């Protein structure tokens, strides 16, 4: 059943009716999350109003790591099963993951200046997130360098799996080293250390960002399938033109 659903043609068909619903739900959850963040969350006793930055910083950080994890799983799908949709999923995820990692870095920096007195420190958590962003940029650049998507897929899958070593470093950096970045406060032994009045809006924003990310990813996968069809048809058309068959010109491409 999974093999059938993951066939590119079937994938386009079963995701088409889902897209407007996912987009609408993402927008509604995001609007509700922003309402909670701006009108119900109390100021923090230490951070004051600056705590509101956390409601975009934490979800963005989560998505930066989540999409890289998804890319690592897709890389396995490309290398082990050579499934075409795995490569499509990996390629579609990279720019989205990079964008959310950039949001995480910039919003963290804007929070750091008033709270720590500096925009940046070479702390283990901050540096490992910067490395994640650079890996994303490297992967996107490599994809643009290698023209044949099949050749690019294998090289990038290997690079993605090597880069996945960074994920546990990001997660545990605050435990392994003495860092300025605070330790885990949502997922930790003994439960969250955040007050429910702040925790539930944060979880709502994480859910909203996740759904938005998934919607963007599914849309990007659908577009990537179309792009590959365009490429295949263009090559076929060019070959026909080379053989001199009287066919329509490939105008507009």
């Amino acid at each position, binding site marked *: 059943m999974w093999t059938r659903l993951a066939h590119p043609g079937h994938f386009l068909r079963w995701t088409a009716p889902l897209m407007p619903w996912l987009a609408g739900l993402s927008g509604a959850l995001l609007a509700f999350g922003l309402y909670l963040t701006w009108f119900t969350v109390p100021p923090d006793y230490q951070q004051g*109003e600056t705590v509101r930055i956390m409601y975009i910083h934490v979800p963005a950080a989560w998505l930066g790591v989540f999409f890289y994890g998804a890319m690592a799983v897709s890389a396995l799908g490309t290398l082990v099963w050579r499934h075409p949709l795995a490569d499509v999923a990996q390629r579609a995820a990279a720019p989205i993951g990079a964008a959310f990692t950039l949001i995480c870095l910039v919003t963290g920096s804007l929070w750091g200046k008033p709270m720590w007195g500096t925009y940046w420190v070479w702390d283990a958590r901050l540096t490992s997130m910067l490395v994640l962003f650079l890996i994303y940029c490297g992967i996107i650049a490599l994809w643009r360098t290698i023209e044949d998507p099949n050749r690019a897929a294998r090289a990038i899958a290997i690079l993605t799996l090597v880069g996945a070593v960074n994920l546990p470093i990001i997660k545990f950096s605050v435990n392994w080293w003495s860092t300025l970045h605070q330790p885990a406060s949502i997922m930790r032994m003994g439960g969250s250390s955040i007050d429910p009045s702040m925790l539930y809006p944060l979880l709502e924003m994480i859910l909203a960002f996740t759904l938005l990310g998934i919607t963007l990813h599914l849309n990007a996968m659908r577009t990537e399938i179309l792009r590959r069809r365009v490429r295949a*048809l263009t090559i076929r058309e060019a070959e026909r033109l080379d053989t001199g068959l009287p066919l329509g010109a490939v105008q507009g491409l």
Partner: protein
Amino acid sequence: MPLGPLDLGPHAGFILGAYAFTALVIAGLIGHAVRDRRAQTRALAALQDSSRPASQPPAERRA
């Protein structure tokens, strides 16, 4: 800086800057997704139109 019932205090610029940057990046992602999808759909439609004669048998095409 007061924002409705909120007074964002002395760090309002950092808070609003963070939200503005996030909004800009997400709007860029959505805008790029829409433009890219339209471009690929148009390109695919143009190619399918131009290669339609290929569906006919070769003998018929040469006739």
